[in-house]
C-alpha cells in the first residue's frame, strides 16, 4: 500500500496531474460561488461550449503554422474564445432582451458544433476530441502546468481580493448601481474570471463537465454554512478533496478522472442533503423557538382580560 502510494507520488505524470487537480479544485468554486449567488449556474457550461471552438481554432492555426506539438495553441485558443464568449454572454444578459435566451442557446450549440467541425478540419482525431470534452488530466505537460498555475493565481487574486465588491454586485445589482460602483466593469470581471476558470478546469474534467466543478462544491457548501465567506472556503476545500480523491481512485482503477470527480462531488451533495434535515431537527429539538421574538400590532382579548 505504502509502496503503491510512493509509486503514485513518484510518477512525474501523476505529480503534474495532482498539482493541476489541486489547483482546479481550489479555483473553480471561487467563481462558482458568485455564479450560484446571481443564479447563473449554467454560465460555466456556456463558456465551456464556446471554449471548445477556441481549442479547435488553436489546433487549426497550429497546423497551418506547422507548430510542434501541433496542439500548442489549443489552450491559448480556449482562453481567448472563452473570454470573448463570456463577455458576449454578459452583454446579452445585461441588456436583458427577451431574445437573450435564444442568443445564448445559439452561442452554446454553435460553440460545440463549431468545435467538433473545426477539430476534424485541423486533423484532430476522435480521441483528441474526447480528451477535451471529458478531460485528459493524464496528459498534462509541463507547459500546461505553468499556464494552469498562472491562470489559477489570477483567478484567486481577483476572486478573493475583490470579494466585497463582487459580492455587492452579485447580491444586489440595483444597490451596487446606486452606490456608484462600476457595475458593468465588475460584471465583465466576473465573466472573464469565469472564462479563465473554465479553461483551467477544462484540462481536468473537460468542457462538458467543467461547470460541475464550479457549481457542485458550492451547492454542497451552502447546505451547511450561513455566511458567504464560509460558503466559499468550504466549497474550495470540497473542490480540492473531490479532485484529489477522484484522481487517486482513477490511478488504480481505470475510469475517466473527470467523471469520477464529478460523481464524487454529486455523491457528497446527496450525502449532505440527506444528513442535513437530521442535524437541523436535532438542533430544533432543543427549546429554541423558530419564530423571531418581535412584538405584533394585535391586542388579544385574553390579554385584555388579564
Amino acid at each position, binding site marked *: 500500500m505504502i509502496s503503491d502510494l510512493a509509486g503514485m507520488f513518484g510518477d512525474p505524470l501523476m505529480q503534474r496531474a495532482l498539482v493541476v487537480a489541486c489547483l482546479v479544485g481550489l479555483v473553480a468554486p471561487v467563481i462558482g460561488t458568485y455564479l450560484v449567488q446571481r443564479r447563473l449556474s449554467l454560465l460555466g457550461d456556456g463558456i465551456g461550449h464556446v471554449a471548445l471552438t477556441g481549442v479547435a481554432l488553436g489546433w487549426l492555426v497550429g497546423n497551418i503554422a506547422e507548430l510542434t506539438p501541433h496542439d500548442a495553441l489549443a489552450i491559448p485558443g480556449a482562453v481567448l474564445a472563452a473570454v470573448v464568449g463570456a463577455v458576449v454572454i454578459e452583454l446579452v444578459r445585461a441588456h436583458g432582451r427577451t431574445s437573450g435566451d435564444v442568443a445564448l442557446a445559439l452561442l452554446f450549440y454553435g460553440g460545440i458544433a463549431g468545435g467538433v467541425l473545426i477539430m476534424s478540419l485541423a486533423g484532430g482525431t476522435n480521441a483528441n476530441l474526447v480528451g477535451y470534452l471529458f478531460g485528459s488530466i493524464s496528459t498534462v505537460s509541463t507547459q500546461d502546468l505553468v499556464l494552469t498555475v498562472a491562470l489559477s493565481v489570477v483567478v484567486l487574486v481577483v476572486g478573493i481580493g475583490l470579494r466585497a465588491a463582487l459580492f455587492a454586485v452579485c447580491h444586489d445589482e440595483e444597490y451596487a448601481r446606486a*452606490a456608484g460602483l462600476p457595475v458593468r466593469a465588475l460584471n465583465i470581471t466576473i465573466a472573464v474570471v469565469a472564462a479563465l476558470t473554465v479553461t483551467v478546469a477544462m484540462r481536468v474534467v473537460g468542457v462538458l463537465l467543467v461547470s460541475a466543478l464550479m457549481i457542485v462544491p458550492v451547492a454542497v457548501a451552502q447546505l451547511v454554512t450561513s455566511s458567504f465567506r464560509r*460558503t466559499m472556503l468550504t466549497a474550495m476545500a470540497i473542490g480540492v478533496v473531490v479532485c484529489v480523491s477522484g484522481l487517486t481512485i482513477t490511478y488504480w482503477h481505470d475510469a475517466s478522472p473527470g467523471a469520477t470527480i464529478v460523481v464524487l462531488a454529486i455523491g457528497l451533495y446527496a450525502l449532505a442533503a440527506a444528513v442535513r434535515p437530521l442535524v437541523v431537527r436535532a438542533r430544533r429539538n432543543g427549546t429554541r423557538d423558530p419564530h423571531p421574538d418581535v412584538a405584533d400590532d394585535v391586542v388579544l382579548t385574553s390579554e385584555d382580560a388579564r
Partner: protein
Amino acid sequence: MTTDRQPGPAVIEAVGVTVALGGVPIVRGIDLTIGEGEVVALLGANGSGKSTLVRALVGVVPAERGSIRLLGAPLGRTVPWQRIGYVPQRVSAATGVPATACEVVLSGTLHSNHLLPPRGARDSARAALASVGLGADADKAVRTLSGGQQQRVLIARALVRHPDLLLLDEPAAGVDLPSQRTFATALADLAATGTTILVVLHELGALAPLIRRAVVLRHGSIVHDGAPPVPQPEHANPDHVHLHPHDGDRDPAHDEAGVTPTVRWQG
C-alpha cells in the same frame, strides 16, 4: 416648501425628468428640488411612479429626458456616492448563497472606485446593525431573519456610510408597527443632525411628525408639493390595521384612476 425652516443648498435637483420602462412613460417631466436638511415624503398610489422616480434619481434606471444633479454633481461618476445612502424596495434580502447580515451591510462601505472595505469596516457594519436593533443578529444568515428584520438589514447597509442624503423606497412596507416606531426615531435622529431624507411612503404613519413637505405623484406627474395632505378619515389613525400585499408597484396597469394617492393602503 417648509414654512418654518429655510432649506439649504439643493441636494437633489431634477429638471424635466421623464422615465420610460418598456416604452411606457412611468415618470413624466418631473421637476423636483430638495434642499439640504429637508425631510420629504414622496406619496402616491401603487403604480403612480414614485419608486421609478427614486430609482431614476440614484441612476438605477436611466432617465429618458431631463437632468438630475445629486449634491451638486450631474448623475454619474462625479457624484460623491459615499455621501448617499439608498434603501431599495425589497421584500427579501436573501439570495442564492447564504450571507450574514454583517456581510450584506459590509457592501454598504463600498462606493465608486473604492472596491475594498476600508479599515474597521466590520466594526462600522456591526454598529450600523446595532443602530437598527439587529446588533445580536449580525452573524445570522439573512435568509433566517424575518421580512421586517431583512428590511432593517438593508437600512443598515445604507446607514453604514453615514450618508448626508438618504433615499428610502417604502422602508416601512411589511415592517411591524413597533419596528416602524423604532425606525421613525432613528430617522428623526438623522434628520436632527442635518441629513437630507427622501422617503417613498404609502402613508405617513409613524413618520408623520417628522415630515413637513410631501410630494404627491399621480400618473407619473407631481400633483401636490407642500405641506403633507390630510389623510383619508379611515386611515387617519396611525394604529389602524392594514394589509399591504405590495405588488404591482412598478406596473402602470395597476394605476387606478381616481384613487386618492396619498394615504391609501391596498387591502
